[in-house]
């Protein structure tokens, strides 16, 4: 599904990723944890194709293709979805128009007929229920006037609508109280399947109680310092990140 | 104070007091002086140039400017677009040169008339060695002539040149010839042409590369003589990586006639240099009936000539019958920064049409404009500003905010911004509001035991706070006092 080899990237003059290697198979859920500034969100941004970041070395294969060669919208149409840490407000763009555009772009790419307005509305109602989002949201502008929790649930709602192959959740848990966190996790779990992979980026272990990962990676100073199973996340919760930092310094990866 | 107020003291009473407050610096100094004959032609210009022992090139420049001005004058090409009303000025009825005594240049303070030194003492500026303002170098200009410059030697140790314009012509002709007229050419506008022909003195300042000027540089202008105008010129050159903070203050005696002040200020900031120019303008504004006062027609402009330069204008405008000035920045160097912070307070029959021009030429240039206008009495107070983003100015940014406060229902507050965008990467935002002091704000203060007058003062001060905070420390307090005096309508 996704194969990242020795990926380095920078913004302006700051090297943020310093050789990340990571591979995700279909149906797997991988978590990337790490302290602030370790490069977690940069990894998400580079995978989604944000132009502010410059890839300085390494490769990313996605479904057998060179992901880095693809435009951001092409990545999305090929089934790569990013749930934003800070969802963008689009005043004047209604949710229904936005989703019609997005869903039908993806469908057209897959050689499917576009959804009619009625079909789309039906689908919206269905999927909105998944994350307990108010169904009258279709008239509202995208993310405008949404509470923090609503914005995050809206990201998972869009994930459900677009049915991606690989979903990257960039700190979807940040700023959520425990009830909202459960709703979001429930939505994500409903969407898990043998063909769909997840890359869950988070600072806290808490989310991983609800979205149980197959693999946990720890990102420190732009490198994967350690990879393990879900117990690794628990250890991080108890001991923090410092022990890993010492390890990386003592025995640098690569 | 409060007990003496009538029981029925209302906001209107207060505003009337504000509108009728008197001018503190309206005294005349009795000193011998020499004036040029009234009128303006080539002989006037020669008279001025001769009195000042100027080299030939200076005289020629003046004469070219005069010729240009005469052309403008014949075509009646005065600026008419400002929101100002005043009778036509008779330019042949003014004396274009007045010196405090027969000596056009002073070699030392000993030569200065003691009466004159006392004048500056009364203005709070001591020029004598013992009482010099700490941390501030002052060039004092009375009528047409610079009378003294303090701290010259201390500054010279670091290579800083700070002297009267006349001395600069004598001692640094290369710098003067290179930069004079480079930002405000004598063809720029009617009043700049006039100044170029007849300017008498002013200040010159050069900061060498990498030098951070250790003290505030200041010029103090005073018009003393009747029937004269004042036409000074200031030239500031900040070489690569240097920094200077400059302050200008001005007052004039109380006279029934209108006097003309047409100054030119030019600033050149080279790569990485920063110039902060602050003005406290307190020329005589005329009496409550609108009689007398200074006509203040001033051209101030700076250029960020190279990359990373910064020019910042801060002004507190409380004086003059008419103010016409637009301190501007040409942002030529990439990544350069222009700022304009202004408080303009008008009362009585004062009229102000003031603002700035930010002309973005270089890439990634940024400008900020914050203007606060306060109108009282029968005055009219206009903000007029231009933000221009040229075709080549990629990623330019501007933010402008113009707020007006009306104190009373017989004054006017106006906002005339011009925004010209020729590059799609520009981000330009302009906001303006006009309101009066809120009744709920006053009530809130009242409820906390603060009287009406005090409340208005507090609120107005709050309104201006972010601008006054831009003034150099030494003068911020001064400015606040001045504003308080203006508001209170009483001396001290």
């Amino acid at each position, binding site marked *: 599904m996704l194969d990242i080899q020795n990926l380095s990237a920078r913004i302006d003059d700051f090297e943020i990723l310093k050789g990340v290697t990571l591979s995700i198979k279909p149906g797997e859920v991988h978590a990337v944890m790490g302290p602030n500034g370790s490069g977690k969100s940069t990894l998400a941004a580079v995978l989604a194709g944000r132009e502010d970041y410059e890839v300085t070395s390494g490769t990313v294969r996605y479904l057998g293709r060179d992901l880095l060669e693809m435009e951001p919208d092409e990545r999305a149409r090929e089934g790569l979805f990013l749930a934003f840490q800070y969802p963008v407000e689009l005043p004047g763009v209604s949710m229904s128009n936005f989703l019609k*555009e*997005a869903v039908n772009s993806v469908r057209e790419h897959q050689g499917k007929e576009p959804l009619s307005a009625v079909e789309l509305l039906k689908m919206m109602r269905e999927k909105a229920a998944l994350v307990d989002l108010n169904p009258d949201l279709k008239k509202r502008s995208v993310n405008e006037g949404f509470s923090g929790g609503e914005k995050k649930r809206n990201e998972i709602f869009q994930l459900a609508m677009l049915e991606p192959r690989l979903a990257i959740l960039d700190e979807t848990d940040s700023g959520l109280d425990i009830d909202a966190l459960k709703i979001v996790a429930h939505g994500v779990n409903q969407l898990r399947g043998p063909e769909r992979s997840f890359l869950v980026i988070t600072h806290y272990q808490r989310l991983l109680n609800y979205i149980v990962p197959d693999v946990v990676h720890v990102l420190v100073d732009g490198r994967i310092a350690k990879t393990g199973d879900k117990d690794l996340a628990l250890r991080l919760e108890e001991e923090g990140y410092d022990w890993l930092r010492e390890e990386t310094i003592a025995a640098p990866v690569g | 104070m409060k007990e003496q107020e009538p029981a029925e003291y209302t906001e209107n009473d207060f505003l009337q007091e504000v509108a009728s407050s008197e001018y503190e610096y309206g005294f005349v100094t009795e000193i011998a002086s020499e004036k040029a004959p009234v009128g303006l032609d080539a002989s006037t210009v020669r008279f001025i140039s001769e009195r000042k022992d100027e080299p030939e090139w200076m005289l020629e420049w003046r004469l070219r400017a005069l010729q240009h001005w005469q052309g403008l004058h014949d075509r009646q090409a005065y600026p008419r677009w400002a929101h100002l009303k005043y009778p036509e000025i008779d330019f042949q009825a003014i004396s274009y040169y007045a010196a405090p005594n027969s000596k056009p240049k002073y070699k030392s303070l000993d030569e200065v008339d003691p009466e004159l030194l006392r004048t500056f003492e009364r203005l709070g500026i001591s020029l004598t060695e013992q009482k010099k303002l700490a941390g501030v170098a002052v060039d004092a200009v009375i009528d047409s002539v610079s009378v003294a410059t303090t701290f010259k030697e201390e500054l010279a140790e670091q290579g800083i040149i700070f002297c009267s314009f006349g001395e600069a012509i004598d001692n640094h002709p290369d710098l003067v010839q290179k930069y004079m007229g480079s930002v405000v050419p004598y063809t720029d506008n009617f009043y700049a042409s006039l100044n170029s022909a007849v300017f008498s003195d002013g200040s010159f300042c050069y900061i060498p590369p990498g030098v951070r000027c250790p003290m505030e540089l200041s010029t103090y202008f005073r018009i003393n003589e009747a029937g004269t105008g004042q036409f000074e010129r200031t030239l500031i050159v900040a070489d690569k990586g240097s920094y200077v903070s400059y302050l200008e203050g001005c007052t004039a005696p109380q006279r029934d006639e209108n006097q003309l002040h047409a100054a030119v200020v030019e600033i050149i900031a080279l790569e990485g240099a920063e110039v902060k120019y602050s003005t406290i303008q307190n020329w005589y504004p005329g009496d409550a009936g609108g009689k007398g006062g200074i006509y203040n027609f001033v051209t101030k402009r700076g250029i960020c000539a190279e990359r990373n330069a910064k020019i910042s204008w801060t002004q507190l405008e409380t004086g003059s019958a008419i103010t016409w000035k637009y301190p501007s920045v040409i942002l030529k160097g990439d990544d350069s920064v222009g700022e304009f912070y202004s408080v303009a307070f008008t009362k009585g029959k004062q009229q102000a049409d003031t603002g700035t021009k930010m002309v973005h030429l270089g890439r990634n240039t940024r400008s900020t404009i914050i203007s606060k206008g306060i109108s009282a009495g029968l005055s009219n107070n206009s903000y007029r500003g231009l933000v221009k983003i040229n075709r080549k100015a990629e990623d330019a940014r501007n933010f402008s905010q113009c707020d007006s406060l009306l104190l009373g229902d017989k004054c006017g507050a106006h906002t005339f911004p011009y925004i010209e965008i020729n590059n799609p990467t520009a981000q*330009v935002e*302009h906001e303006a509001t006009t309101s009066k002091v809120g009744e709920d704000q006053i009530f809130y203060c009242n409820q906390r035991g603060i009287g009406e007058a005090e409340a208005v003062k507090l609120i107005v001060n709050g309104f201006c706070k972010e601008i006054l905070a831009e003034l150099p420390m030494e003068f911020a307090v001064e400015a606040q006092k001045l504003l308080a005096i203006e508001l209170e309508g009483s001396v001290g």
Partner: protein
Amino acid sequence: MTAVKTIDIGTDRPEARFAAAFERNRPHILNGRGQPLAEKRNRALDRFLELGFPGPRDEHWKYTNISKRLERPFEIAIAPAVPELRPQDISRFLIEGLEGSVVVLVNGVMVPGLSSIATDGPVIVPIMDAIGNPVFDRHFGRYADADDAVFTALNTAFARHGLFVHVNRGVKAGTLHILNVTTGVRDTFLQARHLFVVDPGASLTVVETHAGVDAEGMFLNAVVEATIGSDARFDYYRVQDDPGTSAVTGTYVYQEGASYASCGTVTLSGGTIRNNVAVLPDAQHCESHLTGLFIGSGEMHIDNHTLVDHAQPDCFSNELYKGVLDDSATGVFNGRVLVRRDAQRTNAYQSNKSIVLSDKASMNAKPELEIYADDVKCSHGATTGRLDAEGLFYLRSRGLTTDRARTIMLQAFVRDVLDAIAVEPLREVLERAVENRLAK
């Protein structure tokens, strides 16, 4: 301040051609029934010659070089031919679903066969037939500022084409669509003039559109006057979407107590377009709304000038203009809010936002506040910039192409101006037209 000058019409200045045409057609032009109009026309022509067409040094025309446009030797149409059009020739210019009256003016002349006027609608008479009607005579030329605006003076001198529309007291007159069709003419200078009189308690909505059929190089000088009685409501929309026409339009609305007026000005295509909208709420408790949308491409030049002249207390005005400029197009917004001494407790708001899309496009904005009363709340804002990069990325991350994302963002940008259009069928037509114009 302005000195009185009279242009030397012996020169080849364009004004001379108008003066000659006026002399030539004087008997013809004055063939109406009333002397008052003849006098108004003579005075207006004198005023026109005194002022002359504005040059770039004229502050009100600083950003629009109209004289250059007028150098072209237009034919000055006093009575242009009216080619016969069939209903199917114009059906595509009608607004689907719009109920009410439709008046079709072909080259300025009302064609009853193409028009349909609702029985319970307003009273509609071509202006030349209205001369002598006391209501018409009382109001015509009273609100348009012939003293100040040279184009209004020119229009008053020449105007023969257009409508006098009168809504009687208390009548809810519904919607009137005025469809102006120019056909079979080129390089012609046309002048149109409407007068709307909405009596107290009455209401009227007017949608004015322009269409060209086999017409090129046209110059339209249009003046609209409206007087709105107390408690009455008037909504006026002008839609310009005719690539072959340059225009100067003046819309002057006079409001009496507690009346409501809205003016929507939409410019989608054309050559050089200058729209002047002036609203004078002259009694207490009036409400005025001015909205504008302009989309410039190619070499278009679109200049919107507005004036809200608050002369009386307790009024509210709101102004919202948005523009999108592409290619080598130029946009101008000059909005003036004037609050006179007596207009206490005025609330006046103004906002102008523009997006510049190309290296060769320009936007000039001059939002002005001129305020002489102290108990007011007034503000204006103007922003110019490009599309929000974060928003574009968000849309692309959901699978939209760059072009599609751009179109969606631009549509969203103009959303609130379109939402302000109260006539739903018009809004729908404009939504489609705007989408087509903004798509890349």
